């Protein structure tokens, strides 16, 4: 049986850990609020963009725009967004598994798949898995602590360039969409070629006056759309990460309190046993003298 001193030491250790997890939870909660606001702010922009783009794409010949035109069934690229830091529950491994499963389940859809990863954790997880071709991993996207528009734009431009080079026939995006602090939705969407939103037939479509022309407007909006989508996905992922970390740290703190409770009970029992033992010795000693 563990000695009194040992148990006391254990309690001390668990308490220290609990302090850390509590602090991390608080930090995440604060960061989550900021990230959540950023996501909410970015959504109207991204949604409006897709609306405009969809109504434009309806009227334009899709094949004349390289970013809209459907291609063959050759190679596909999967862009996976994870985080740089761990201690956020199943956040990274879940999303990595979703990407892995997506590749396995759609093996027939395209000849082969390659991966582009944002975030250190996804890279560490997937580079050890069989059959995963990682062409590039960004490990410093989130280092500044905040996602800025240029970060998303650069990533978007990189993806567009890869697509223009003609090596890939489709590009998919896998990321955690933020729903609430407790839930993240693992999302897989097709990034390129761009899929315009279906517009119901009976919905009134406004006839616009285009300047300079519909196709030129479309040409400028399409690449921007990718940039905005990447920016938004990064924001959503960061908000999800903080949410996941907050939840994970909350349950870690709870587990720690539970453990402290159990250990304290054990400690008190051991102490009581020691006292009883000592008393017995004194009494029997006194008896012997009589």
């Amino acid at each position: 049986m563990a000695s009194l001193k040992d148990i006391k030491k254990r309690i001390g250790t668990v308490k220290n850990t609990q302090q850390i997890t509590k602090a991390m939870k608080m930090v995440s909660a604060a960061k989550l609020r900021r990230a959540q606001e950023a996501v909410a702010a970015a959504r109207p922009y991204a949604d409006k963009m897709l609306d405009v783009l969809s109504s434009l794409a309806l009227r334009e010949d899709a094949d004349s725009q390289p970013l809209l035109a459907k291609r063959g069934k050759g190679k596909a690229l999967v862009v996976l967004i994870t985080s740089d830091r761990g201690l956020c529950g199943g956040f990274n491994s879940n999303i990595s598994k979703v990407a892995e499963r997506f590749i396995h389940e759609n093996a027939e859809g395209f000849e082969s798949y390659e991966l582009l990863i944002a975030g250190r954790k996804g890279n560490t997880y997937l580079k050890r898995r069989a059959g995963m071709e990682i062409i590039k991993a960004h490990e410093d996207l989130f280092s500044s602590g905040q996602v800025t528009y240029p970060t998303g734009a650069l990533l978007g431009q990189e993806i567009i360039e890869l697509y223009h080079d003609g090596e890939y026939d489709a590009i998919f995006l896998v990321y955690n969409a933020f729903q609430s602090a407790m839930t993240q939705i693992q999302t897989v969407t097709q990034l390129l070629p761009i899929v315009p939103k279906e517009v119901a037939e009976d919905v009134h479509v406004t006839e616009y006056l285009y300047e300079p022309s519909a196709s030129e407007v479309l040409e400028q909006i399409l690449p921007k759309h990718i940039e905005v989508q990447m920016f938004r996905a990064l924001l959503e992922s960061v908000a999800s990460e903080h949410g996941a970390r907050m939840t994970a740290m909350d349950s870690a703190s709870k587990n720690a309190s539970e453990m402290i409770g159990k250990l304290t009970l054990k400690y008190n029992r051991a102490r009581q046993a020691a006292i009883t033992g000592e008393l017995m010795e004194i009494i029997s000693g006194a008896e012997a003298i009589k």
Partner: protein
Amino acid sequence: MAEKIKLELVTPYKRVLSEEVDEVTAPGSVGEFCVLPDHTSLLTTLKVGDLSYKQDGKTFHVAVNWGYVEVEDDVMTVLVETAEPADQIDVERAKEALSRAEEALKTLSNEDKDFKIMEAALARAMIRVQVASEKSH
């Protein structure tokens, strides 16, 4: 007939403006244009420039970056990458950025990859300085 237009100015970071205004002048990619109430539906792209609007006789200026405008039923939605109202521009910083861009451009040739980036930076800085000096009056 509508008396006012609703101007919505949105960037990826936030909704900058949502106001009822009398008149909007915007830097379209094919030239500056003005939108009054009852304008026909319009969709056009913007270039870096000075977007101004009139509200109760006062004129306000906003420095905008690349974006586009949609006008529909007296609602003018402006989606731009950055938008800075004149009174929020840090003139000192803008001037610094301006001279930095000028310096950089001197050393670069036309073919350099960074040339276009710096050129864009220069345009942005110039607009910021210009808009800031207009201020609202």
